């Protein structure tokens, strides 16, 4: 795990995240959000979880980001008139950030270096999914089906 790469990716990711949270235009924010997730996926790669990184790109860029921009498109008439920010919220978020950073820096047990690890193959993940995690997998399948139907029902035209 290269430190330089990590720092560069982390900075880019955080910059994109901050842009996603603060940019005035919603579309730009959504695209920054996509960039953030690419960054997170890259961090996953660096942390030795390639499969999850690919899945993250696949699901978030391919599906969630497209969904978000679609939603922006469908609610476009409202996009122009963005209102001022809620400053209390910003203050709170900063407070939480400060508190958490303080807590992390204060905790000594997390100042450790990653142990050596053989890279984890897709095959092992597949086997784990099909053996010890088969019930969660089924539940997630059910959940996704339910979410799909629920989303469809929600956006169906209201009958007059």
């Amino acid at each position, binding site marked *: 795990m290269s430190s330089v790469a990590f720092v560069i990716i982390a900075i880019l990711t955080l910059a994109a995240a901050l842009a996603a949270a603060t940019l005035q235009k919603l*579309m730009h924010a959504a*695209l920054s959000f996509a960039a953030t997730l690419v960054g997170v996926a890259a961090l996953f790669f660096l942390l030795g979880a*390639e*499969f999850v990184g690919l899945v993250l790109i*696949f699901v978030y860029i*391919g599906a969630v980001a497209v969904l978000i*921009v679609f939603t922006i*498109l469908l609610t476009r008439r409202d996009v122009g008139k963005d209102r001022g920010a809620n400053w209390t919220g910003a203050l709170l978020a900063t407070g939480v950030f400060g508190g958490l950073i303080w807590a992390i820096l204060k905790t000594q047990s997390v100042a450790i270096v990653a142990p050596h690890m053989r890279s984890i193959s*897709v095959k092992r993940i597949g086997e784990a999914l099909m053996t010890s995690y088969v019930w969660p997998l089924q539940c997630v399948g059910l959940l996704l089906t339910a979410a799909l139907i629920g989303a469809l029902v929600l956006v169906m035209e209201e009958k007059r």
Partner: protein
Amino acid sequence: MSKSVDQIFVNAKQWVLSWLTGAPGWVLQVASSLINIFALLFVFLTLFALMSVLERKILGRIQNRYGPNRVGPFGLLQPVADGIKMLIKEDIVPARADKLVHFLAPILIAAAAILALAVIPYGRNMTPFTIDGGILFFFAVGSTTELAVFMAGWGSNNKFSMLGAMRAIAQMISYELPLIITVLPVVMVVGSLTPDRIVAAQAEYTYGLVPRWFVFTPWGATAFILFFVSGLVESNRTPFDVPEGESEIVAGHMTEYSGFKYATFFMAEYIGMFAITGLAVTLYLGGWHSPARSLEFIPSYVWFFTKLGALLFVYIWLRGTLPRTRVDQIMNFAWKFILPMSFTCVIAAAVWHYAGRGLRGWLWSFFVIAIVYTALSMLLDTQRKFAPRVYRFAE
């Protein structure tokens, strides 16, 4: 002899890297990657240039006319002329466009298309980047294309662009599902997401005669056809080119692009096409393996590009032959026919596996596919009777 010809590019790369002996590991890694990247870019940009002119020539032949034949011998230098034209054209950006997004869209779309090329094995030991989940990488990168297309449509701030982008995304999302599901049987049978392994699994010959390519199994053939059709849609080619249907919405999401940006879109489309056909060759047509043992002396990359070229020819052929479909027809076709058939392929592959991967499995999986196909065609039959066509002007 043949071995050294086969490995000539691999050895050349080793030779170049041998200059750097003694450099730190990361330098070697970066150098190796750079060599791969430049090789890829060189090969595929050349192929793109060649394809653009060949397409026009073949289309011309299909339509009973000559293609471009003025620039260079047989018009082969036409792409150079086109390139120069594109480069010196004025780059127009609409005044009310979202400039940043408008600028980023072609870059992203080209990057995604080129990235997808990285995991395909072009020959023996000739995979640019071996990733454990290579197939997943291919689709993950491919899925970003949708976002790029959307950016192009949105950034142009033009109704035609937006409509084209919506159409493109709708059909790309719809066909991404069958695209992935038709890959599943191969992945299941091989037990790996790595393209190298998939190619290696198709190495042998049944009875020393018929190559063990997946296209020669019933499920493989079905999946290959479905994959090919879905790939056609993914790359927005005729007959599924509604997103840029000239007669309806000018040029879809590319309406507001001109000059080099337009050329980039054009290039991305072709490179996406190469990538998807390359994946089809890898998955179903045995990758770089030769179709007969006696022909193994021909280098592996030649075989790969021969197969790729054959598939690309079919693309052009289809473009010259078929009329454009309607949007609702494309959607109906995807959700009512292609998707169920793709699932059937998965089941048929499982049947094939559990029936012993031999002749018995072949027959059983054929049976499964035949049943589902018959049932679907009965269910989906609209029973519409078409009046006999009358050609009034083409007699």
